[in-house]
């Protein structure tokens, strides 16, 4: 049985987790951190993902991609009003956003795939086995295009995505596993870019989602922007300086604003310090928590409407919610906690680490799918109503929001004109009456045999699977013949394009691997150089001059190799250094220094 991992692919941070016996665990990197910043830097030395990429945000703003999740399954028009906040350049092609870096363009699923690959690599290193299967989480309020884009990202990263799982429900699994709760819970998830509220009933191991709601464009990023806009205005006022044309300045400002916001969750006031360009000196400003709350109040209050709607859809009063669980980094803001507490009339839970709980839940779901845990079952819902366009541009609903999935609906189609050979079908997602106010998912043409009007009878089956993804099939009722439908997604990559991207991803993989191996070899060379120098300082007097000279020569050769870009050459010189220092290491081990050195390997002595 191949292992299935759980992945939280976040706007700001991503994590990977697995089931260790009965316990879900987040896999940490070398630095012991579970969170991988969802940042990708395209540097001259290759691709960098995560913490190291974050350093490039200011240094290399046009080539460092962050918050790409905001663009998944979207077109340019959808994100028009936030474009000015991004330093990298966005275009559109075939209804899909493309990110332009140098002379290459990338779709959001491709960038997400780079993050997924980093997580995959991390898991492979930790578990010592190939990882090919995953559960990936998405905001519950993600529509079909956004889910499909996430699935595409998995494919491009070489992962078989066995389930697209809703983030708040994933959190409830982790929470339920730990607390063994029964009753009604509300999961309030506010991260960097998205907001979800889900209301669930927990009973005898069944996690039944009663209702969900949210906003896929509301989160900590938006809070940061209120602070950025404030600072931009003041800098303009006081210094007559417009920072917008400086992408590096804008990034520095954004990061400083975010840090200030985070500090204000613990402190009542803080100072932002910004180095201005072109001899304008330093800009300093004190910000209080009250000021931040005044700036972000409107945004936080925007989360309350969806909460009320979800309660209403679940047929519950706030007092009937037994527990409220907080998920996502932004729920650390005191204002958010206060508002949630006021709405539900109870102190929200936050015992579980709000950063990790989604990934842990994804690992639990992965375990269920792989046949491990069998006593828990998640019954989730579709967040948005699904319908088709009818006469006059009105939507005829087929599957209502908050319907338990898998869900299906059948619709019979016929013709209006004698001899008509096709019927156009337009599928939409959303709650509005008119087609044009909803999200267009896809259009397709139903083929009909030429017959008098009203005689053909084509039954179309719309099925939303357990991932919340739509499948369409059609059958001619008269002949019993089935037909394959060519659906053109309105805002998604075509199958061919995904196929091509998978191919490219493997091509890049070779390049990326080379870049990684070089970086790793150089890092190791640096470590062994330091260790050797230290050993020479400690025990140089215990060996003869000839031996010392040999070590020096080996070190020089290592330096030369390190300046080149052949990782094998570097590895060979590392081996040389280890050979020439072997005797010295032994001596050091044997001497009274032994104790200080403990059992560490020579190369670890830094």
């Amino acid at each position, binding site marked *: *049985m191949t292992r299935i991992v759980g992945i939280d692919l976040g706007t700001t941070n991503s994590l990977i987790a697995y089931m260790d016996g009965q316990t879900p665990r987040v896999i940490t990197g070398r630095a012991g951190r579970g969170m991988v910043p969802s940042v990708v830097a395209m540097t001259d030395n290759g691709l960098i993902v995560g913490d190291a990429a974050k350093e490039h945000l200011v240094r290399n703003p046009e080539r460092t991609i962050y918050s790409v999740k905001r663009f998944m399954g979207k077109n340019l028009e959808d994100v028009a009003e936030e474009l000015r906040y991004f330093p990298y350049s966005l275009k559109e092609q075939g209804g899909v956003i493309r990110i332009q870096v140098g002379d290459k363009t990338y779709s959001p699923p491709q960038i997400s795939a780079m993050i997924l690959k980093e997580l995959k690599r991390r898991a492979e290193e930790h578990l010592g086995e190939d990882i090919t299967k995953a559960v990936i989480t998405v905001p519950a309020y993600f529509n*079909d*295009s956004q889910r*499909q884009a996430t699935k595409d990202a998995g494919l491009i990263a070489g992962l078989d995505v*066995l*389930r697209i799982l809703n983030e708040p429900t994933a959190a409830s699994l982790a929470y339920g596993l730990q607390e063994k709760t029964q009753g009604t819970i509300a999961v309030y998830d506010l991260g960097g870019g998205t907001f979800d509220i889900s209301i669930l009933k927990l*009973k*005898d191991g*069944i996690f*039944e989602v009663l209702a969900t709601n949210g906003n896929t464009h509301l989160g900590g990023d938006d809070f940061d922007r209120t602070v950025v806009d404030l600072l931009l205005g003041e800098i303009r006022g006081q210094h007559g300086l417009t920072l917008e044309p400086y992408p590096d300045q804008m990034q520095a400002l954004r990061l400083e604003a975010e840090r200030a916001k985070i500090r204000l969750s613990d402190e009542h006031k803080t100072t932002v310090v910004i180095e201005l360009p072109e001899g304008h000196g330093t800009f300093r400003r004190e910000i209080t928590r009250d000021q931040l709350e005044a700036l972000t109040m409107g945004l936080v209050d925007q989360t309350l409407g969806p909460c009320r709607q979800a309660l209403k859809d679940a047929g519950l009063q706030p007092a009937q919610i037994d527990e409220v669980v907080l998920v996502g980094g932004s729920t650390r803001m005191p204002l958010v906690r206060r508002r949630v507490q006021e709405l539900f009339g109870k102190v929200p839970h936050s015992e579980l680490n709000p950063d990790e709980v989604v990934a842990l839940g994804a690992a639990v*779901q992965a375990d*269920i*799918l*792989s*046949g491990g845990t*069998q006593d828990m*079952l*998640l*019954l989730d819902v579709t967040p948005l109503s699904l319908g088709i366009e009818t006469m006059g541009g009105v939507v005829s609903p087929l599957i209502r929001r908050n*319907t*338990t*999935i*898998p*869900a*299906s609906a059948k619709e019979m189609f016929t013709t209006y004109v004698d001899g008509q050979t096709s019927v156009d079908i337009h*599928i939409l997602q959303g709650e509005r009456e008119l087609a044009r106010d909803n999200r267009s*998912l*896809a259009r*397709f043409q139903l083929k009909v045999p030429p017959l008098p009007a009203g005689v053909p009878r084509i039954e179309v089956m719309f*099925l939303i*699977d*357990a991932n919340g*993804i*739509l*499948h*369409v*099939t*059609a*059958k001619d009722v008269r002949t*019993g013949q*089935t*037909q*394959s*439908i*060519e*659906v053109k*997604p309105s805002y*998604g990559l075509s199958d061919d394009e995904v196929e091509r991207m998978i191919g490219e991803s493997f091509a890049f993989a070779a390049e990326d691997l080379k870049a990684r191996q070089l970086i790793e070899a150089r890092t190791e060379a640096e470590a062994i150089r330091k260790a050797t120098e230290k050993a020479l300082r400690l025990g140089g007097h215990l060996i003869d001059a000839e031996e010392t000279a040999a070590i020096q020569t080996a070190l020089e050769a290592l330096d030369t190799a390190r300046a080149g870009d052949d990782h094998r050459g570097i590895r060979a010189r590392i081996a040389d250094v280890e050979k020439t220092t072997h005797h010295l290491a032994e001596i050091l081990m044997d001497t009274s220094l032994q104790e200080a050195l403990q059992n560490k390997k020579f190369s670890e002595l830094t």
Partner: protein
Amino acid sequence: MTTDGMQKAPTKRSELQMARSMCWHCQSEITGEYFCEQCVKVQPLSKEMDYFTCLGLPRLLNIDLAALEAKFYDLSRAFHPDFYQRKTASEQDISLGNSAMLNTAYRTLKDPVLRAEYLLRLEAGSAKDIRTSPPADLFEEILTLQEDLEAFRAASDQAPAAVASLRTKLAADRELLEQRQRDMEARLLELFSRWDALHDRRPQAAPATPHSQQDKEAVLKEMRELLSNRTYLRNIVNDLIATTA
């Protein structure tokens, strides 16, 4: 969004219907309820199966919701795609189809109004006619309300005092209509019990007499009237709420 070419379907519907009593996989006769006792493969629910049968219930309108939920959870554990991840493509398809049907059945039977509407459809077939004319016994009230609403819409840019008095009038109208709604719901529940009493004389117990058949039809007819009146009323109240909001 993905589309499946229909060629992917593992088994033809016609075959399945014919072979309901035969396992689609090992062809042995099925004695178990949802699984073949020979090869333990899950069996597809028949497309003709009604929602009551699906949830193991007699065709009665008063339902024990806790028992219904327990049955739904049980069957979810039997059919949900989560538990078929490692099975064959055919079994996965059956699991998907069965789960979707189970979910629809549960959603329909859980809600009293949907349940009653569904029963009407089952019992009366497609003969169900949805009337769109206003219910006769509500004619007066609806006429008054319509006038009040007109006046309110026209008055929205007039003196605040006039608007306020119209608002009070509409609030009173709303109160009245909501009382009618509650009356209707109470009557609906009475009809539920009447139906159940009549229906409990199952053919096996005592063959349906022409008399009991007539009684049943009378209940169904009144229920149909009531449900369409209720829909009509609800739309009006929603309109009222939207206008005065």
